[in-house]
């Protein structure tokens, strides 16, 4: 009996030691490895799942349709972070060394994890793509060499929402004296837009109130009591996961007019409005260029992945808002690899080589057509100086059953954002003893 127990214990210990000993060295293969940090559980799971499905489906599609990138097969491994920073860091450490050339890029889909990885990525030479989230000042590629907040940051998002509001009021001058409230997730994610909104509030003379909601955001009674008391002209919603649905329910309960509510692009997907349905009619949200829909690239996924019963999620979820966003995120990573192969040869790329590719991306009209995203994304071009590439966005409105896209395109006002990015990046550089790169020099030398 005792012997058996001892043996059992010893076996368990050996198994534990073996499993924790880390990844074994792998034979060099013609493969490009993508770590996929996801959250399919927890309070943010409903929003994490479609993003993760889109991401993985796109990688699957590239393998099935093109046989990889120029013959280099794509491989990946998912790791559940549950939106927790420490688990995200563990996932990153677990996956960063896998594959013949290590991790290609990391995309954590969490501002908290992004902040933590911003410190680690430069040492490990792994680029960090944060499409539509992350550190706003990391758009400055001269300081943040490894960060790529492509397609927009929270500052551009906040800026564009204010533009949309002034358009609705009939000019920026009309915003004077109005009250705009920000209902935000009380974390780095929710706090990012505050600096921008404060700057705009000074510019236009509107009153700006901050209403924080604590994680995970299921308890918002106090917040909406304040909304009821202050009666702001507009409420901006900066939530994620269950917080969005709860906020909309509370808004309905408070009888706040939903057409005066504007969500960021992370508060404007199907899971957010599903529970509220008809009563959320009129709610507006920002769309990161494109919302829900099935275009050519999504059809390719259906054809090459779902028709072969290889889909990650359910077939009818392909083309949802967050699904598409996951897809674009994967596409940016894959195109980064493709671009770097033009420079370094058609073989698996290291993180450092992919970083060069990401910094020299150029999605012109022809490229958009080739990628099958015509009419979904606008041209994007990254440089050493500008790691964001594009800051266009549109508005969409929930009509009770589906998201309806507005026609107007907005571009963030770089006159306001550039100096703020410069200032914040310079502060970061000073704190971290980083000497900013001289982008003018790098661009002429061509590498």
């Amino acid at each position, binding site marked *: 009996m005792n012997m058996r127990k001892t043996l059992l214990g010893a076996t368990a210990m050996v198994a534990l030691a073996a*499993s924790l000993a880390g990844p074994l060295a792998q034979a060099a293969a013609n493969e490009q490895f993508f770590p996929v940090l996801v959250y399919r559980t927890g309070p943010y799971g409903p929003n994490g799942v479609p993003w993760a499905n889109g991401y993985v489906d796109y990688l699957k599609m590239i393998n099935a349709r093109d046989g990889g990138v120029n013959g280099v097969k794509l491989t990946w491994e998912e790791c*559940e972070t549950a939106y927790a920073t420490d688990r995200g860091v563990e996932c990153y450490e677990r996956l960063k060394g896998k594959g013949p050339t290590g991790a290609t890029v990391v995309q954590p889909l969490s501002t908290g994890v992004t902040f*933590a990885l911003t410190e680690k990525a430069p040492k490990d030479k792994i680029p960090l793509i944060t499409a539509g989230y992350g550190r706003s000042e990391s758009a400055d590629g001269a300081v943040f060499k490894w960060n790529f907040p492509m397609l927009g940051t929270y500052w551009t998002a906040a800026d564009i929402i204010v533009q949309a509001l002034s358009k609705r009021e009939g000019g920026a001058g009309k915003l004077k004296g109005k009250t705009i409230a920000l209902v935000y997730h009380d974390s780095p994610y929710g706090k990012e837009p505050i600096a921008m909104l404060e700057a705009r509030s000074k510019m236009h003379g509107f009153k700006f109130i901050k209403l924080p909601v604590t994680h995970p955001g299921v308890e918002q009674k106090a917040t909406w009591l304040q909304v009821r008391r202050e009666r702001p002209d507009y409420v901006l919603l900066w939530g994620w996961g269950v917080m969005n649905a709860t906020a909309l329910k509370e808004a309905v309960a408070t009888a706040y007019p939903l057409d005066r509510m504007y969500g960021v692009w992370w508060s404007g997907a199907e899971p957010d409005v599903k529970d509220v349905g008809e009563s959320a009619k009129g709610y507006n949200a920002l769309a990161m260029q494109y919302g829900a829909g099935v275009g050519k690239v999504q059809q390719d996924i259906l054809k090459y992945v779902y028709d072969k019963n290889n889909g990650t999620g359910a077939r009818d979820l392909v083309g949802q808002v967050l699904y598409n966003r996951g897809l674009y995120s994967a596409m940016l990573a894959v195109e980064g690899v493709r671009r770097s192969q033009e420079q370094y040869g058609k073989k698996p790329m290291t993180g450092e080589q992919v970083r060069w590719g990401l910094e020299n991306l150029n999605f012109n009209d022809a490229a958009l057509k080739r990628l099958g995203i015509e009419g979904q994304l606008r041209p994007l071009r990254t440089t050493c100086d500008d790691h964001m590439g594009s800051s266009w966005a549109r508005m969409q409105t929930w009509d009770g059953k589906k998201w309806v896209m507005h026609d107007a395109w907005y571009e963030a006002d770089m006159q306001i954002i550039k100096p703020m990015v410069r200032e914040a990046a310079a502060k970061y550089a000073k704190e971290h003893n980083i000497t900013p790169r001289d982008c003018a020099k790098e661009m002429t030398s061509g590498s």
Partner: protein
Amino acid sequence: MLYRENGQFKTRYVDDAQIFPIRQDRLFIGAVLLIAFVAVPLLGSDYLLRALLVPFLILALAAIGLNVLVGYCGQISLGTGAFMAVGAYAAFNLMVRLPGMPLLIALVLGGLIAALAGMVFGLPSLRIRGLYLAVATLAAQFFSDWVFAHVPWLTNGSSSGSVTAPQLQVFGFVIDSPIRKYLFCLAILSVLALLVKNLVRGRKGREWMATRDMDVAASVIGISPVRAKLSAFAVSSFIVGIAGALWAFVHLGSWEPAAFNIDLSLKLLFMIIIGGLGSVMGSLFGAAFIVLLPIFLNRLLSFLGLQASTSFISHLELMTFGVLIVLFLIAEPHGMAKLWSTAKNKLRLWPFPH
């Protein structure tokens, strides 16, 4: 046979008062330290050191600190996360605002500031005890969550409330590689664990334990409950504060107030309950259980060669972990430290039990 103190005569009081009176124990601890300081850094992969052992060591340190308060002095606290946060932000502010501040001194000062905070929030313990005190310490938790999120001065005016650790340097060594981080945390853990072990064997520790077992009796024999309880809060928060600073600086590198939320406090409480209340060794066991086991469970299926979806794996991880906690507490309510000492007692008689 192997583990028996026969023939080890103690001829001096000093011999009798050592931490490990049995020679085999001393050899064992020596071997463990040797493995931890030499073999593990040489053989361990970066992943093992950086992603598993560093968080394990830091949380083990915090668990030791909490054990001083809960296990030795009997004051239940749910505010551990808050004291970790105080240590972390205090050390951060010291390093950012006073250029040239050495890391070790910032850590110690951070610990001292956390000790002060601990004493302030420990004041209610003089009037209330047990579960009521636990609720009172919860106030510390919520207060720290709020204050670090809403007082910009404490986060050096960071627009998003998230701050980044400055460069870490000790005696000219930059602590950046996994091995250095591991060794740095291990050294601090070893020193503080030794300190605690000695404290609890001495006069102070006996005061704490007397207070824990029956505070009226303790005050009758001349132990001041005020001093006993507040000193336990201070020592505990000091260690917890240093652990918090390490967690922020060495492990996370960049953090937000949510990194020290109530989840962390509860996790640490579970660690010492599962590991064993009133035992330094138990804190280490408990930390290993809570930090390493979930990751092990998460990776188990892929090591067995089974394919499963990520969500299935993480649900399985949560369920198995919960079941194991329940089973453990049923099998040994006094924690893993008790199992350890039972095993040692059995080993004395092995292979010829009565």
